[in-house]
């Protein structure tokens, strides 16, 4: 399975979830309020919202780590407590902590065994996934000595360990260096290509925009808006070496586009439209230096929807 959302049973579905905490002093704080959404196989869904919007609580409710006051969560159409469903889920929490005296490899080995792998396969998987997240050497040290970023990567390796069909990642790039963040993006895209459903909670708008198919805007526990990232509202921007020389042929070849200086811009409805336009530009004699999809509107949307700014 590749690309966009697929039909069929959602990997994760939450309906009318509500959760209230008791704050110090006894006041009730509504963390999640009547929240409903679904994540389908081969889809990356982002959760966006300010601190305290209920993003982490929503994930924990979805996994039955918290008991909802109302509503329900379903994993692959069934109860999240079912052991069969849990085998298919990977979860990486924000700022995870691990047994300080065990090494990263021993922790991975423990989880691999809990997933049902034999001792030899468990060790092999532990080493493979530690290597995959760039922890081959640090994973040999006790977990208590790992940095925040390394612990974050270990959490990610644990989430991926069982080749899950559903991944829930809570601020997975927090504490990661730029190279590791880029690797994380590649990994998410690869997971989507495999048909894995991903629910991503992140504060980084650029990251969400680059990998997510859909973004859910949350505030005070409520779902304010659902934004289809890959549908419409995007612009293909191409930088050309010979823009001035071929402006005439370009206007004929791609009439929906517009030249401005050394840039050529065209509105696109989806990523599928990009390759044909590039082909037409090349056929018209364009010497392309750079091409990118611009979607800066997510930040504007965030400010508009969540912060209420015009």
């Amino acid at each position, binding site marked *: 399975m590749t690309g966009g959302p697929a039909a069929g049973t959602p990997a994760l579905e939450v309906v009318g979830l509500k959760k209230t905490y008791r704050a110090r002093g006894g006041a009730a704080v509504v963390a999640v309020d009547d929240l409903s959404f679904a994540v389908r196989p081969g889809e990356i869904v982002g959760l966006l919202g300010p601190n305290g919007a209920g993003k982490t609580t929503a994930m924990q409710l979805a996994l039955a780590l918290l008991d909802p006051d109302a509503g329900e969560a379903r994993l692959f159409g069934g109860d999240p407590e079912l052991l069969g469903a849990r085998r298919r889920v990977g979860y990486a929490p924000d700022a995870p902590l691990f047994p300080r005296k065990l090494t990263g490899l021993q922790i991975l080995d423990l*989880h691999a065994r*809990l997933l049902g792998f034999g001792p030899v396969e468990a060790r092999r998987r532990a080493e493979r996934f530690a290597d995959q997240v760039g922890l081959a050497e640090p994973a040999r040290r006790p977990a208590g000595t790992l940095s925040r970023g390394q612990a974050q990567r270990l959490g990610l390796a644990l989430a991926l360990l069982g080749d899950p069909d559903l991944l829930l990642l809570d601020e997975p790039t927090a504490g990661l260096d730029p190279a590791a963040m880029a690797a994380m993006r590649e990994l998410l895209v690869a997971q989507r290509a495999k048909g894995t459903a991903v629910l991503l909670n992140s504060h980084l708008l650029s990251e969400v925009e680059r990998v997510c198919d859909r973004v859910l805007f949350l505030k005070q526990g409520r779902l304010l808006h659902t934004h289809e990232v890959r549908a419409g509202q995007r612009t293909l921007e191409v930088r050309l070496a010979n823009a001035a020389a071929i402006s005439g042929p370009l206007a004929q070849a791609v009439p929906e586009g517009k030249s401005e200086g050394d840039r050529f811009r065209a509105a696109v409805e989806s990523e599928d439209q990009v390759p044909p336009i590039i082909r037409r530009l090349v056929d018209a004699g364009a010497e392309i230096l750079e091409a990118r999809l611009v979607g800066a509107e997510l930040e504007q949307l965030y400010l508009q929807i969540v912060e209420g700014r015009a």
Partner: protein
Amino acid sequence: MISWPVARATALEKLRSPGVLAVGFCLVAAAFFGGSGPRQAFSGPALVFLGMLTLFLGAGILSDELDSGHAQLVLLRPLTRAAWVGGRLAGAGGALGAIVSAAWVCAAAGALLRGAAEPWVPSLAILPLAMLWAFGWLSVLAAVGAVLPGWTNVAGAALAVVAWGMLRGGLPVLLRRPELADVLATVGKYLGPQDPLALATRPREGLGPALYDLCWIFGSWLVTVLLFNRRELARRRP
């Protein structure tokens, strides 16, 4: 009932804890120098160290994992809460067994060096019986740890023991009914694991406490699971 991968990881973790190792070393040393043979391996100062070792092994036996949030990752695997509790207990029990066995061997070696000879059967029997007693208390700490955070399970259990002791001593005096002392003493025998060490030498006296301790351990595990099943797993954010 027991997750062996969890038990293995718990035993490794406990055996790398500096506190457990320090008290374990004291227990081994006390067993080597203290008694006149392996039958006395867990008497006198060694018994105190065995109690301390149990406390160190049982401190935060569940809450360490729950507070850190690792428990929620483990329990998202295809694993029941009962098996996880069983695994944590079995792992701590494994670490206890390793240290107690080392103490027993050292007691036997010390006795041999001093030229003391003891009958083998009672000497060998003392080993599982001492473990049974300590494991009984470990299961109490696990049950308390299912509801209390951090290492407060040790404080909670210690407070309960002290409170019971005060009640036992004070109530007959306060109510001016000395006959209550016997009743409370009898009740007290059933408020925790009993001492089964007599089974090694006096089977008639020791069999009852040993069987009682086995039931106690199972009962504690059951209570721990029931209490733990009512808990939410997610770690509260600071």
